[in-house]
């Protein structure tokens, strides 16, 4: 799984996605083809601002392995200001979350390939303010 993680490092660390110059839509994670324009699409890499708002969320008690130590933790469906949506961990008190809450991207540790393996970093979100 080492190359699999390495390959996507830029997109995870920097919140880099795609923008189609033909239709003006933004996508995260990045896409090779625009699902609206397909062959007519002109997909370019784009750096997202990292700001967005919460559309929905869950406080997860039955955690996936890498998040086990953090349970309960919050994952949220976030609409980035550019328009793309992302499902990402949200680091905050679960009782403070509201629909539409403004959030911003932060750089955090996601887990590791065991004690001897590489460390996975990526983008999580925190409330603004």
């Amino acid at each position, binding site marked *: 799984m080492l190359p699999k993680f390495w390959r996507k490092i830029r997109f995870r660390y920097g919140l880099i996605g795609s923008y189609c110059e033909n239709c003006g839509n933004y996508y995260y994670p990045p896409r090779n083809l625009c699902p609206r324009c397909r062959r007519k699409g002109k997909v370019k890499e784009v750096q997202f601002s990292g700001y967005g708002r919460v559309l929905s969320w869950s406080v997860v008690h039955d955690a996936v392995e890498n998040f086990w130590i953090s349970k309960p933790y919050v994952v949220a469906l976030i609409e980035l200001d550019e328009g793309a949506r992302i499902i990402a961990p949200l680091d905050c008190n679960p009782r403070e979350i509201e629909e539409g809450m403004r959030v911003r991207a932060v*750089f955090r540790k996601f887990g590791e390939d065991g004690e001897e393996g590489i*460390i996975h970093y990526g983008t999580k979100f925190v409330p603004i303010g």
Partner: protein
Amino acid sequence: MVGIVSYGTYIPRYRIVVDEIARIWGEDAEVVKRGLGVEQKSVPGLDEDTATIAVECAREALRRAKIDPKKIGAVFVGSESHPYVVKPTGTVVAEALGVGNEYFCADLEFACKAGTAGIQICYAMVKAGMIDYGVAIGADTSQSRPGDALEFTASAGGACFIIGRNCIAEIEGTFSFTSDTPDFWRREGQPYPSHGGRFTGQPAYFRHIFMATKGLLEKLGLKPSDFNYVVFHQPNAKFPMRVAKMLGFGKEQVRTGLVVPYIGNTYSGSSLIGLASVLDVAKPGERILVTSYGSGAGSDSFSFVVTDKIEEFERNPTVLDKIRECEFIDYGTYVKFMRKIRR
């Protein structure tokens, strides 16, 4: 004119108070607090380490300077808690900043002065015309053996300084004093550092800071009263106050940059977060002295002169804002967060 073009800081939001640690280990909290001048310390969250702290403070610095990350020519991360023993933290940071691939990078380790070592290297590289901008970061999630005196202060945080021309604070001069003094160390494979107890004082901290600072003052022909602010490495609140007095500085000069009572000793971030909190309030023309200390042992001393550019520079959120934004945890949560207990 070469100096600080921008700076950013990061302090994890969790805090543990000295009373809570003292309660667990049967120490008298009041005695500890009086002895160290420290009330509480910052604790990294489960998903934070030196790399994440370094990225967060560097992103703040980049945002404030509005510099294209591609113009950064060198990245140095100084820490004694690099997430990997072999594999640089700096490449993680540079990738997250979007520096590209054409940059020079190395991790630094010199106990608590690895961050200022990075500033010196960047300063030299910019002056030599090798790079336009260099990023120097001091960041740590410092470890301490449960029950050890270090546990009251060893904390987490970091600061990033972007060095270049067209700066908000010019580096007027720098001077280092170094010797082989084993006052504090961590051997390969050991989870916690060891130290020489009271030996970390006079022959280590005080001698090196005193000599580096004195050397800088002599080199620049300046005296303590020429400075508006002075920042020393702050393993506790007492040491910097005492060394200031030894050198002829007043308490008022030290106070603005003294953050250790509220966040503890952030190791490689310690003197740098102190400098950042001074820059948060500094006015054009003011002069700042900073002397770091790293066990092992050495001190880097700097004189900065604040320029007019600081007036339009975005300084919010300030170090003080970050000190205030906190959440208190108990000792059980603390040992879980620090991975002192494992499943």
